[in-house]
């Protein structure tokens, strides 16, 4: 196996036992980028020189102390950061033309925590500009391709992050999930992708899309890896008033726990017309596997699901229009005419729904509906421990297939955005393939239940091992 195919867990073991060096590990990933990225377009910026310096530094630290991994659990592990994450002295572009040359004077809290844990930032990954999209096709610097099929999308908006890990260009990547944007690329690229509880991980330094929806998540090859990264990024941040003072457990500690007696709810509103037959088949099979592991599965209802998309697409653009106001070209960036079509669309929608005379009918009403949707989740999650649902109604679609109709593109989020509205956590886990294309399902739990989600996913992963199926590039 090539070094870039290793999981974080395997890489750390190998580094500890001096089977290879950090430099060798990093070079393996850099070579992948050199070989593949002109076709994949997963990276906007690659920080080769600095990353190599970091790798050498990591090697020196390992030589000096073998216990260094207790202090720095991700030492030497190459990571791709979604280009919404501020990185000091390395361009942050948000996938847009407006700040295509912006260098932040500070690191996002998440960036800093990963760096302090020893991770090496190999570069910034491509995305739908500003996070606006579900496929990566709204990037101002060209779409990213799906490593499993280069004619198809990798999912968005954290498109580059998904493709990069799947293709071995880095060992894990970060993203943001506001309406689906970590879980969907994870589903399309055969990865474990976490949308954490709102307030679990600091948003400070990550360019805001919709402030009350944005969550700071990440994608990995395996469940263990994912839990390991959350141990580093989670926790209260004095720079983010919406982070919560809730203890951060050792998420990797109880992974092997069995799920006998676990109560799993399947929301009936998620099994509707329009969902791809293969996806339905594969998800049903996955649920059978979960049952065979001892879980009790039955149907539940989230009655306000049908209003979720409308609610989301009123509240989200409202906040987007506000968060993009600071890009006025005075202190950084180009003038506002440089915004792409989707950004303009959302700003027009958002300013309309907030304008006087319309605020009550749109924003305020949607805020009330939001509460109802949140209550649906709270009520159901009192009856069951977790819910399981498909991540996407369709298989990874062809590039260009949905770009003519923005509404069609929005519907990709139909199973995802209710979770963002409710603020609860959800974990995408690979659950099969259809004609070589990855299918994912999400495990959804109550607020701050990430530990339980990981246990469920780990038990399922151990049975199925879909992460072993690599793309053929």
């Amino acid at each position, binding site marked *: 196996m090539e070094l870039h195919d290793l999981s974080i867990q395997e890489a750390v073991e190998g580094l500890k036992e001096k089977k290879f060096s950090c430099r060798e590990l990093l070079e393996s990933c850099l070579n992948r980028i050199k070989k593949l990225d002109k076709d994949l377009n997963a990276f906007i910026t690659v920080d080769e020189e600095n990353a190599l310096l970091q790798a050498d530094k990591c090697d020196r630290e390992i030589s000096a102390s073998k216990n260094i991994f207790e202090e720095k659990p991700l030492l030497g592990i190459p990571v791709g950061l979604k280009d*919404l*994450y*501020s990185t000091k002295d390395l361009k*942050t572009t*948000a996938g847009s033309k407006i*700040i295509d040359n*912006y260098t*932040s*004077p*500070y690191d*996002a809290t998440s960036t800093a925590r990963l760096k302090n844990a020893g991770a090496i930032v190999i570069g910034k990954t491509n995305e739908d500009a500003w996070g606006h999209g579900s496929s990566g096709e709204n990037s101002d610097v060209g779409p990213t391709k799906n490593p499993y099929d280069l004619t198809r999308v990798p999912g968005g908006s954290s498109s580059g992050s998904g493709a990069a890990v799947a293709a071995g260009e880095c060992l894990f990547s970060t993203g943001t999930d506001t309406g689906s944007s970590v879980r969907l690329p994870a589903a399309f690229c055969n990865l474990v992708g976490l949308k954490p509880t709102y307030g679990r991980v600091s*948003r*400070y*330094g*990550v*360019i*805001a899309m919709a*402030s*009350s929806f944005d969550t700071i998540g990440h994608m990995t090859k395996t469940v263990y890896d994912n839990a390991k990264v959350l141990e580093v990024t989670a926790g209260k941040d*004095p*720079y*983010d*008033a*919406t982070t919560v003072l809730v203890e951060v457990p050792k998420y990797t500690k109880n992974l092997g726990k069995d799920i006998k007696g676990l109560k799993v709810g399947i929301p009936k509103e998620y099994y509707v017309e329009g969902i791809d037959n293969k996806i339905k088949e594969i998800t049903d099979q996955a649920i059978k596997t979960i049952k065979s592991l001892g879980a009790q599965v039955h149907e539940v209802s989230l009655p306000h699901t049908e209003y979720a998309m409308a609610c989301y697409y009123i509240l989200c653009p*409202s*906040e987007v*229009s*506000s968060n*993009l*106001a*600071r*890009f*006025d070209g*005075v*202190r*950084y960036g180009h003038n506002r005419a440089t915004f792409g079509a989707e950004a303009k669309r959302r700003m027009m929608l958002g*300013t309309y729904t*907030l*304008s*006087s005379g319309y*605020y009550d009918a749109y*924003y305020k009403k949607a805020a009330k509906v939001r509460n109802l949707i949140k209550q649906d989740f709270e009520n159901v999650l009192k009856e069951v421990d977790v819910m399981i649902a498909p991540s996407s109604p369709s298989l990874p679609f062809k590039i260009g297939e949905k770009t003519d109709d923005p509404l069609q593109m929005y519907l990709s989020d139909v199973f995802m955005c209710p979770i963002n509205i409710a603020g609860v956590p959800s974990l995408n886990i690979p659950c099969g393939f259809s004609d070589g294309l990855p299918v994912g399902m999400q495990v959804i739990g109550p607020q701050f239940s990430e530990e339980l989600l990981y246990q469920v996913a780990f038990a399922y992963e151990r049975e199925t091992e879909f992460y072993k199926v690599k793309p053929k590039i």
Partner: protein
Amino acid sequence: MNKYKPVIGLEIHVELATKSKMFCQCSADYFGKKPNTHTCPVCLGLPGALPVPNKQAIDWVILIGQALGCKVNKTSKFDRKHYFYPDLPKGYQISQYDEPFNIDGSVVIGEKTFGITRVHMEEDTGKLTHLGGDTLVDFNRSGVPLVEIVTEPDFENAEDVKRFLEELQVTIRYLGVSDADMEKGSMRLEPNISLRKEGESGLPKYKVEVKNINSFNFVKKAVEYEIERQTEMLERGEVPAQETRGYNEAKGITVSQRTKEEAHDYRYFPEPDIPPFQFTDEEIGNIEKQLPELPSVKTERFVTQYKIKPADALQLTRDKKVADYFEKVSSQIGDRGSQQQIANLIINKKLSTLLPVEEFVNKAVEILTPKIADAGALKVAVEKIIGANTKAIEDYKNGKENSLMFLVGQVMREMKGQADAVTVKEVLIKKIKEV
């Protein structure tokens, strides 16, 4: 001919003297500092930056509200107020819209009561400087905590406006939350002025906002000018435009700043980055406990407790430090001097309030003790002064009382204070008669 009655409301902004800014840890002490040296990602509105509220500032805005008799809202929140301007880095100002920290207060000045609509919290903007054809932006002031006080349109004349503002300034200084200095920009005011026909009720259909007023004297002048300007227009049958006007100090007039005033749609919505607030009765009570005795109450107490003239009591209480000093001196001097005498010494600046209290007391006792003039020395001094001031003598004989007081002063100087004015006056009058 006064068919019209002024309807005036005030909007006052007070910058809080907190150590750090409202939503970040930069120093809030920006006055006179090198531009753009007190900045960070938050107050620069850099991508990804988030606001974290300053607890001291919130305690203080509630304290101000309580000092102005307001009700403290048990639930409150921040809202985003959107507009584009180069000194507003985020493209929105974090302010308060429909759930401000304080509402429904009132202030009594003399016989009149003026309503306070609300007292809320917001952040200040950067500062623009125009230089030739360029405009420079300094973000040191961006994010400094700013309290906005809005009064009911209860004012009917410029004099009341001035008195209210003076009382407000003293009150805020008493709380120790701001130096409320108009020259430094830590207190700013905008009156809204309109007129309605005598006997009519309800608010006039227009109101004129006046900006760029830099002292209390100028407020009075600006308000008076506006009342006159609007009266003339109304008498001609014209309705004054709803607009913002700027006060021109040099010419003493107001000038239209905007030709067409449309109500700006700020697209307010609740600030999602800052969780809303819920205050308990206990928390509100704890802040209230920090209220000092307010200047109006102290003034009244000085009159009744110390039996000094109301005008003197008012002057002593304009500065809390002076008022406290006065009370310390009063308690130490006992019956060696009356409070009115001490008040006089302070107000007439005969002795400095910077002296240690004991020293003040000793010097005061010396001054206040009646001097027994040496009769012989006094006779010599009086004769000398009379001899040297024949004109003054004549003026006095012709009825000018002031000339006598002048002569008394001259004798007192000659005697180097070793005489009391009453005796000197008596002796002078006697001697002048002999001349």
